[in-house]
């Protein structure tokens, strides 16, 4: 699904975030990406989303470089990215309208067609509003609903495309604890229903272990090799209450501690 080969990425006038970094994601996997602030975990998502381009190496999604964002890749951000002038229904239906807008447009060059697909119907919009439990808010504006409801709207909007890849950048970190657990559970359910490949960037150990069947750990930049913790039970119902969950959490915590220690030694040297 995703192949990153020898990728190097640096923001202008900053130390490099990735140096000859390689990493693979197979279809239908559920990944969590965790690391300290500034480790490049959000940038990694933006590179896969086609919003940034690597300076060297390759980032391939379904075998093609991502020169621009693909409609088949959903991106969920911490601050929702909803249109403030559109109602919940209109925000979700944006994808339908854009599909219509681009209905005659073909893909330029090789690779998949990047535009939203035509032929999405208002019924499908209603279906996703229903599934995300926000059908009753269809005529409300983003300013009138809670953070959790906004994120549900953003998720409905992404899923309306039938994405094959869902990128989530700290999607729940500005929500209160109860809403957060609620949406984490919903994410796990939706994954089981749609088998969409998911990459979830988080700084919460608990969230990474709950949702990431495989967990990518990034330490102090630059990241050169992918460190991965396997966590196959993630996403299964009731996982949070099992001893295995706590074991994984402490395994992840000590891995992060080791990396932080290495980073300090590296900085001191």
């Amino acid at each position: 699904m995703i192949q990153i080969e020898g990728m190097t990425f640096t923001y202008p006038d900053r130390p490099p975030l990735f140096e000859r970094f390689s990493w693979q994601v197979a279809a239908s996997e559920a990944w969590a990406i965790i690391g300290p602030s500034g480790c490049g975990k959000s940038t990694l998502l933006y590179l896969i989303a086609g919003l940034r381009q690597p300076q060297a190496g390759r980032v391939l999604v379904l075998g093609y470089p991502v020169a621009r964002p693909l409609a088949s890749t959903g991106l969920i951000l911490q601050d929702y990215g909803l249109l403030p002038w559109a109602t919940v229904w209109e925000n979700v239906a944006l994808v339908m309208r854009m599909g219509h807008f681009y209905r005659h447009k073909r893909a330029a060059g090789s690779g998949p067609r990047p535009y939203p697909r035509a032929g999405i119907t208002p019924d499908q919009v209603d279906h996703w509003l229903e599934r995300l439990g926000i059908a009753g808010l269809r005529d409300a504006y983003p300013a009138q609903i809670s953070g959790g409801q906004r994120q549900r709207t953003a998720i409905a909007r992404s899923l309306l495309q039938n994405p094959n890849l869902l990128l989530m950048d700290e999607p729940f970190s500005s929500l209160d604890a109860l809403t957060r657990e609620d949406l984490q559970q919903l994410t796990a359910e939706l994954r089981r229903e749609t088998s969409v490949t998911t990459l979830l960037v988080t700084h919460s150990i608990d969230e990474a272990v709950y949702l990431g069947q495989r967990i990518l750990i990034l330490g102090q930049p630059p990241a050169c090799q992918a460190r991965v913790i396997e966590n196959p039970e993630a996403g299964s119902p009731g996982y949070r209450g099992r001893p295995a969950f706590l074991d994984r959490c402490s395994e992840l915590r000590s891995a992060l501690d080791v990396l932080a220690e290495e980073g300090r030694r590296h900085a001191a040297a």
Partner: protein
Amino acid sequence: MQRRDLALAAAGLLIAWEIVALIVHVDVLPDPIAVGVAFVHALPNGLAWHFLVSAWRVVASVVLAVATGVPAGLALGQSPRLNRLFSPIIYILYPIPKIVFLPIILLFLGIAERSKIFIIFLVLFFQILVVVRDEASALRPELIYSVRSLGAGRRALFRFVYLPATVPAALTALRISVGTAIAVLFFAESFATTSGLGYYIIVESWGRLAYPEMYAGVAAMSLLGLMLYFVVDRLQRWLAPWMFIRG
């Protein structure tokens, strides 16, 4: 705003005017009834015509200013490079009171319609340009990222993000500057022309000491401003209902 409240406010202002006119009792301040009579009488005798001429000048300028100011503001707001190039120029030109260019405009464009339309256009253009530019450049990058990630290219971004984000702002700019536009029109019409409300007020009535007619002209000009304000306000409520919700 409740329609009843507006009617009450209007009635209150008229009563205050009536009382002041009664107390002062001079012929330079006729009471609202005398002015109303003069207004009705003057309408078919030229006032309606002058009103239409003035209205045409303002509306033509507004259309021109929106048609050029919105795209220019969008272009600058979307492109930091263009904005860096033009913003010092705009910074210098924006605060200059455009009315002082009137003599120059008259020299270049003559005393015909286009010089009046052009001076109002200048006033409105900069207001709209600056507001639309600032609104477009203040759009959160997260919003742009998430719409781009849904598959939007440049054209869809323009159609579904920049345009709906900035048209209400352009209307706000218009609502605020419609008063200035009419003030500039009044000044531009008060000489070197034979039509328009400014001409009617200054030359046809003030010049002949016809005070009730002069007040009728002032009332007509106020009505013009009020009507334009009302239309823009309605348009904004219709095009941007989300600006009027309470969160």
